[in-house]
């Protein structure tokens, strides 16, 4: 970027911030970390989120949960499809951000396109998984007995560092389709596109608090995600053996569910299908007597 020529317009660089409760705050801690290009140039200073930011996100997510879970699958599906639409309109920006951090432009394009496909795929699931998973159970007594899925609640999402946007999309879409609210700790090494993705969500009718996006260090925040007593589940991909053990150990505190998606499911062109949605659902069975 040459800034010396008097005729050359000075570009306006973006400030990347957190996304909590439908707002874009800086981290309360005032800390930042640097995002650099493949060749080492400084691209941006990212917020290094703290435990307090996470707690704040949990509070707003908890408030958002009943409303989001209660929306019809049809409505959630439309919002997911809207996310895909808004991504499509910003393909160039997303590809630039992914490729600025060391991914070839072709691969970056493929990553962004597959991310969009994920949202289209899960938009269509939102009003179907309940029908596929539910059952009327033929009990022997005179009862109407049926089982339906219900979202778990607050899901902490730990996507892989790479691919950063596709990793986030692959984990986030099934969680949202199923009526969960989410707090994602996005890639440390390629955070730009995931941070921009928050702006896309913001313009896609996603209610405030349903998706919260934190940038920061996994080493610092994974213990806080996994010990938080009001987080119901962790959905992760590509955790190291040590991270996996720590997360599962800490999850015992409130028996939060821990779900690992295999890393090959993240980058596959094939969408991961129904399993990730159901892994974040509880099954509720209701009995009602039949009689006069």
């Amino acid at each position: 970027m040459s800034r010396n020529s008097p005729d050359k317009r000075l570009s306006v660089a973006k400030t990347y911030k957190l996304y909590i409760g439908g707002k874009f705050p800086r981290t309360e801690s005032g800390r930042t970390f640097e995002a650099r290009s493949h060749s080492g140039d400084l691209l941006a200073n990212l917020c290094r989120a703290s435990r307090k930011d996470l707690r704040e996100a949990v509070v707003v997510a908890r408030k958002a949960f009943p409303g989001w879970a209660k929306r019809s699958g049809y409505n959630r599906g439309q919002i997911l499809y809207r996310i895909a639409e808004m991504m499509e309109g910003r393909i160039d920006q997303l590809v630039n951000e992914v490729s600025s951090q060391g991914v070839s432009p072709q691969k970056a394009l493929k990553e962004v396109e597959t991310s969009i496909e994920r949202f289209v795929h899960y938009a269509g699931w939102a009003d179907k998984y309940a029908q596929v998973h539910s059952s009327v159970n033929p009990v022997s007594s005179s009862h109407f007995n049926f089982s339906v899925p219900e979202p778990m609640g607050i899901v902490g999402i730990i996507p892989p560092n790479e691919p950063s946007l596709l990793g986030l999309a692959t984990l986030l879409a099934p969680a949202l389709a199923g009526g969960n609210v989410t707090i994602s700790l996005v890639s440390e090494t390629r955070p730009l596109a995931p941070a921009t993705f928050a702006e896309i969500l913001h313009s896609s009718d996603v209610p405030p608090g349903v998706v919260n996006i934190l940038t920061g260090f996994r080493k610092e925040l994974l213990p806080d995600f996994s010990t938080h007593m009001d987080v119901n589940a962790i959905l992760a991909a590509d955790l190291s053996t040590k991270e996996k053990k720590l997360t599962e150990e800490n999850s015992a505190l409130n028996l939060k569910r821990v779900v690992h998606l295999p890393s090959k499911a993240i980058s596959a062109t094939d969408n991961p299908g129904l399993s990730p949605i159901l892994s974040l659902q509880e099954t509720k069975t209701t009995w009602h007597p039949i009689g006069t």
Partner: protein
Amino acid sequence: MAKKHSNKLDFDTGWHYDPAPESPELAKLKDSYDLFIDGKFVKPTSGKYFDTTSPSSQKTLAKVAEADKRDVAKAVTAARKAYEGTWSRIRPSERGKYLFRIARVIQERSRELAVTESLDGGKPIRESRDIDLPLVAAHFFYHAGWADKLSYAFPGRKVGPVGVAGQIIPWNFPLLMAAWKIAPALATGNTVVIKPAETTPLTSLKLAEILQEVDLPPGVVNILTGAGSTGECIVRHPDVDKIAFTGSTEVGKLIRKTLAGTDKRLTLELGGKAANIVFEDAALDQAVEGIVNGIFFNQGHVCCAGSRLLVQESISEKIVRKLKDRMETLVVGDPLDKNTDIGAINSKEQLKKIQGYLKVGQREGAEIFQTSCPLPKRGNWCPPTLFLNASQSHRISQEEIFGPVLAIQTFRTVDEAIEKANNTPFGLSGGVWTDKGAKAFHVSERIKAGVVWTNTFNKFDPASPFGGYKESGFGREGGRHGLEAYLNISETGGNR
């Protein structure tokens, strides 16, 4: 005694029940039982045995082997061999036929098993005969049919067995819990190492005899008796692929921690503190029956017991009066007597725990009521008990007592009832009583629990998935959904 009211439910006919006991001889117990490994009864490596006693008569019923790490290793080896060699290879329909056979022999030996269950565990014979045993047989029968139909259960996905399942079960429904664990595991092609609870091993050992009787291939099911340390050896054994545990939330959390970082599959069915919510428009006499069944069934040793009663303020006096009247009719006593409603508390330890909570409740300021039913002199007994004016923060409203003790709170609005019902760390079950259908669905939808009974309580069926939200554990048992716990399920692909 409850005070006489002009509109008291008149249960007192002036007639009294003569004792109608089943004979303990029907249990046909041996003096001593060994471990069941690889299709044979074998002595424990350590040579150690422990007594299992009757919680009512306090008599020693039999000596039972104590399995240690070496026995667990033998059992897992046998289960692995059986998995690789026979069970995962035979035709699924043949697997199913073994389960059908088991169900049939259980039906044939049902009386013997029911008497054994009541002798060893203390539950009234009326319950072991009419609830436990029929459900045990039904569980094997139901799952038998799944064995060759698994591909219909999960369309679009591929399923396969997990391998060797380690299973640890509690003392409240000893044989029924064994059936809940073994039947789905075998139907889906897994082999099993199972440990019954220390205080109630006998019906599992009789099940071992039945497995021999039906010629189940050796090693497909191995039954190890012992205490917590035996269970821990199963949990820690590296060649076990999956752990299924039913028991306390405390131990469940420990198991979760122990398995952290391993790839072992885990399902937990843990404690509960269910609320039975009674609205003013409910059929009150039915609700009272439901409340009684909810908390006094099986001495309250039920993880999904309705141990809290949330009653709408406008009817609370009336409900409490009816409830006390009804409770006065409950007979506490000999588990083998067919007239008994409430049997013996399963162990001295459990009785102590319950009595501790009775003190805690009074100290916290709740008002206690216990019925005047005479208790037998020997044995572990607790009369049906309720606490009035319990508050949400009281330990008797928050913690699982696992005894015949009901904490009663009132509420005014629907929202308040839901808020109070959900305000514990547990989420296993809940109850709603109202004559308005829309309200029943509204409330049952909002209760954070895996099983909700509306205008009924404590109903079970092999086709009905059972399991909890939150700290009541994860995974389901029963129904199509329960099969998932014993299957590796993958997408078949093509979801482009």
